[in-house]
């Protein structure tokens, strides 16, 4: 039953992201907390988790905000599934590994989104927009990951093992 906490965390982050994150943008680019969490859990728990969580987080965002239903979910699914597959061959609990995955993952995520937008006849300057949005977001997201990842790891351990008390073990 503790798995519910994961989904509740994602819901909370989506709510925060759509209401309060507009105050913490850098050069007009907001970080993506739900993305960081979904990617971290995919890295820790493998590809099945990647599919479930990205469907959940992506569809909520798409239903609430996007006109093209599925554009967030599609990008999120691809990136987190690849992360889940690659997670078997890396040391998962290292913050540095998570940093690299989130950095490259954010770039791929934005690339897939832009590609979908091109198919939908959006017009933009691909390279400069990629640098202005995706690059900044990649740096922003990965820096947040460096600080947040160890808490996500202990949260994940708490959700998966029933005996460990999350609040006593972590440094909150």
């Amino acid at each position, binding site marked *: 039953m503790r798995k519910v906490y994961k989904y509740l965390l994602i819901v909370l982050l*989506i*709510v*925060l*992201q*759509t*209401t*309060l*994150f*507009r*105050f913490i943008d850098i050069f*007009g*680019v*907001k970080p*993506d907390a*739900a993305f960081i969490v979904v990617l971290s859990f995919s890295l820790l728990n493998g*590809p*099945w988790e990647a*599919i479930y969580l990205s*469907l959940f987080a992506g569809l*909520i*965002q798409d*239903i*609430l*905000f*996007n*006109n*093209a*239903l*599925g*554009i*967030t*979910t*599609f990008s999120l*699914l*691809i990136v987190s*599934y690849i992360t889940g597959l690659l997670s078997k061959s890396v040391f998962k609990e290292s913050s540095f590994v998570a940093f690299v995955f989130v950095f490259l993952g954010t770039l791929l995520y*934005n690339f897939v*989104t*832009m590609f*979908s*937008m091109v198919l*939908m*006849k*959006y*017009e*933009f300057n691909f390279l400069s927009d990629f640098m202005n*949005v995706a690059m900044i*977001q990649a740096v922003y997201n990965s820096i947040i990951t460096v600080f947040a990842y160890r808490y996500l790891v202990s949260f994940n351990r708490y959700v998966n093992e029933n005996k460990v008390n999350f609040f006593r073990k972590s440094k909150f």
Partner: protein
Amino acid sequence: MRGVIGVPHFFRNNKQFILFFLIAVALIAAMAYTYDTERYVTKLESIVGTVFTPIQKVFYQMGQGISNLFSSISEIGTLRETNEKLQKEVEKLRKENIQLQELMNENKRLKEALNFKTKNVELDLKLATITGKNPGNWFNTFTIDKGKNEGIQPGMAVLDERGNMVGQITEVGDNWAKVLAIIDRDSSVSAVDVRTRDNGVVRGDSNGGLIMIYLPLDAELIEGDVVTTSGMSRFPKGLIIGKVSKVTRDPGSLLKQAVIEPAADFERLEYVFVVTNTTNTGK
């Protein structure tokens, strides 16, 4: 032969990949089906929105409250200056008002003399609260807390508190709706320069700015002109979009472009008005 045996083997061992693939295809189909449409959302989507809207509303207004507190603290020093400026503005407006009264009377007399029917319609406005903004960086959409139950329809114009054009309704749930801001790449509104009557289309550039395109080469609009919705748009005409800040001409092109500074402040939007009377023609 190996390939023939290999294919079912692959499918048996890679259920996960096949599931992933099928979901991805389904998502692409959903995108293709729903993009660029205006619709009432399905029951399921509507329920998701109904659950999230009240929670988001609380958080959004909390953020707005904190931000207002900080901006009012930083404004204390400049209050006297602002006050003086506003006093002068009031004086100026009072004079203009008297002139306008006279012009209105004259206009009325002349209209009566010519038997001219007035075409300006009163706007029916409905107040709505913003509940959240798009979490991503590519789209400029937001949600409001009024929907089908309050008579909101896809395609209606959305204005800010001062009556400036903000966007249009695209998808409508039972008691919530999505709004596409005019600064989104996907938005295009037929517009006209108030002074010169030059027609064009205003589109967003997703960086918070607007571009007016399809302007003829002999268009005489200049910096500072006010641009409003035109009678050819399906929105009521005369809604203020913004001010011209730069006019350019692409070398080799037969059209002019103008950069428009939006009149609405998209960063500080809290409440919006939905214009519930729409015309059925144009875009």
